[in-house]
């Protein structure tokens, strides 16, 4: 930590909190100027590397000082716009930076295959806007800017999902559905923020928390809580509000799916944690009631229902998308326990799930790139024709089930431990059943990949065809991370526990 705190030059270190969101924004404009897709891609990749470096630097700063605050425009909070980093949002920032780099390495061959040449530069530009929006949500210190950045990222997301139209026209309706629902979610969220502003007279989140603690709660703040939970729940694909997700993930370009699946819902989940734990407090009666009767319940239902739905999907990416909804359920269950152990288990699962789903969607993208396969039954024989990608897929798939020696086991272990601490035996049972269901749908994919023979076309058996190295390397890194962080769980577990302690132990 101490080493991390000082590797950035002093001037950069001072401005790092704002640079991390400004650099992608500048790069988005620069990428739009680029005449060719490859040049825009270089800009995007360089940006993501800078973001990752800044995120590591900020991790060090937060490790040293606890909270890093930056006054935009020199106006001090609570009146000015504050950028605020603490132990809760720095891990999310790190996740965004690292997965941004990995998925952008992967992007070049994948995007070249899926998106028309003259649209590529603008596609990377839209992606960078989305990237900077997600970073903005993570670092914003006031509630209104969370909304602004949420909208920036969402609008860019609708665009890049719709770019899947090159391969499948249904991308347009998927994106449109997401647009309608996402806008409703954002509206609910901003209504909630408006109510909070009415009740507290401030938009700064730390200030809001202080005022609420002093003045207590009333109907207005309760309504605000409900609106905010529904709004952010929509963005985070909390169970009954997840209907936009399967189609959006299934028809978006592969690179977009890989990136969004490992970051976008995570950022919304972070925002939910920030509001529920930091602004409202778990000790408040209606908040703690919502833990048991809302988050835990919808979490468990999501774990069951979405997993069952996943088992019966024919499209491979839709299958994994339903699994993502189920995994959000795990995180909601962790949140719903309302204890530091539960929240840290949920956050640990958030990071681990990013590692798994990143690798899984990248592997599916590689299959689609080489053979154009999308349905589960078309995955037949890929273990023989694309062994490296199939291996990465297998490792990440087993991690998704929660097999020992993978990170999936680690986070489920922590979830079970936290549930037992709370005395929630039914949650443990739900976790077990959901893991069995995960085994069922992952087994369907793995059986097709490894057990069946490669298809033959006019008597000609499909030949071995390795994915390009730019696709393989980030995928294998993520798959390896799934195993590595089982044996070296301390860094991730440490981050998650520090994050949970930061919001739980605040008062």
């Amino acid at each position, binding site marked *: 930590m101490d080493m991390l705190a000082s590797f950035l030059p002093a*001037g950069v270190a*001072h*401005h790092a909190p*704002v640079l991390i969101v*400004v650099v992608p*924004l*500048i790069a*988005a*404009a*620069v990428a*739009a*100027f680029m005449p060719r897709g490859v040049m825009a891609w270089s800009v995007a990749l360089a940006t993501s590397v800078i973001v990752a470096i800044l995120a590591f630097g900020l991790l060090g700063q937060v490790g040293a000082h606890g909270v890093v605050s*930056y*006054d*935009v*425009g*020199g106006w001090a909070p609570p009146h000015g716009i504050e950028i605020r980093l603490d132990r809760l949002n720095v891990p999310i920032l790190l996740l965004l930076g690292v997965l941004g780099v990995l998925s952008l390495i992967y992007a070049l061959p994948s995007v070249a295959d899926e998106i028309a040449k003259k649209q590529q530069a*603008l596609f990377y*530009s839209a992606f960078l806007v989305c990237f900077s929006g997600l970073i903005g949500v993570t670092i914003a210190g006031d509630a209104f800017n969370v909304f602004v950045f949420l909208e920036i990222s969402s609008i860019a997301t609708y665009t890049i999902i719709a770019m899947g139209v090159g391969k499948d026209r249904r991308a347009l309706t998927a994106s449109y559905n997401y647009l309608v629902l996402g806008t409703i979610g954002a509206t609910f969220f901003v209504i909630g923020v408006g109510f909070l502003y009415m009740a507290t007279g401030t938009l700064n989140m730390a200030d809001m928390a202080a005022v609420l603690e002093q003045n207590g709660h009333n109907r207005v703040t309760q309504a605000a809580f409900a609106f905010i939970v529904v709004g952010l729940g929509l963005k985070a694909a909390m169970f009954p509000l997840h209907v936009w997700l399967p189609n959006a993930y299934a028809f978006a370009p592969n690179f977009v799916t890989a990136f969004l699946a490992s970051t976008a819902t995570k950022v919304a989940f972070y925002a939910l944690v920030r509001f529920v734990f930091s602004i409202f407090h778990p000790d408040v009666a209606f908040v703690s009631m919502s833990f048991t009767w809302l988050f835990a319940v919808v979490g468990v239902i999501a774990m069951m229902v979405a997993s069952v739905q996943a088992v019966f999907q024919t499209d491979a990416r839709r299958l994994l998308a339903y699994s993502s909804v189920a995994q959000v359920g795990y995180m909601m269950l962790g949140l719903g326990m309302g204890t530091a152990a539960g929240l840290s288990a949920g956050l640990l699962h958030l990071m681990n799930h990013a590692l798994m789903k990143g690798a899984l969607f990248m592997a599916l993208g590689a299959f689609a790139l080489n053979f154009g396969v999308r349905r589960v039954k078309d995955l037949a024989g890929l273990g023989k024709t694309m062994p490296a990608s199939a291996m990465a897929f297998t490792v990440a798939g087993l991690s998704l089930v929660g097999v020992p020696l993978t990170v999936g086991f680690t986070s489920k272990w922590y979830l079970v431990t936290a549930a037992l601490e709370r005395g929630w035996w039914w949650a443990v049972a739900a976790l077990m059943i959901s893991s069995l269901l995960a085994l069922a749908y992952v087994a369907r994919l793995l059986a097709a990949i490894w057990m069946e023979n490669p298809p033959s076309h006019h008597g000609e058996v499909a030949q071995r065809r390795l994915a390009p190295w730019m696709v393989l390397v980030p995928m294998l890194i993520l798959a390896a991370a799934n195993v590595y962080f089982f044996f070296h769980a301390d860094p991730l577990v440490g981050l998650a526990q520090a994050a949970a302690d930061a919001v739980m132990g605040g008062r």
Partner: protein
Amino acid sequence: MSPHLILRIVSKLLIPLIVVFGFYVHFHGDFGPGGGFQAGVIIAVAVILYALIFGMDEARRAVPPVAVRYGAALGVLIYVGTGVLTMFMNGAGEPLNFLDYDALHPDQSHHSGQHYGILLVELGVLTTVTSVMLAIFYAFAGRVPDIKDEDW
């Protein structure tokens, strides 16, 4: 003799005035209602009126779609560039933060820097809003065939 003589001449007279009014709204934005967004819309409306009267091809020749695309990006760069500029200009020796307009002008007693900063930022907004309005207009207008003269 081309048809719609009155429409053509009146709009030729009006279009420069609309643009001037757009800039008035922009530069007056920090004293009264208005600002970059509204000004951008008004300036875009001038071009849209031109397209309605003289046809899409003429409008595309006057404001090419490429310029619209670059204009949208340029506006963002002006806005962000202002913020980055203030980070590099250290007013009175102490480091200033992103978008701290006081760096832009030495006259601290009247906060002239704040004035210039807002104008610059709004100029970026104006550029992007004009461009995006036109981009949306071009995208929609480009989809349908132009209305034939007999159909007016």
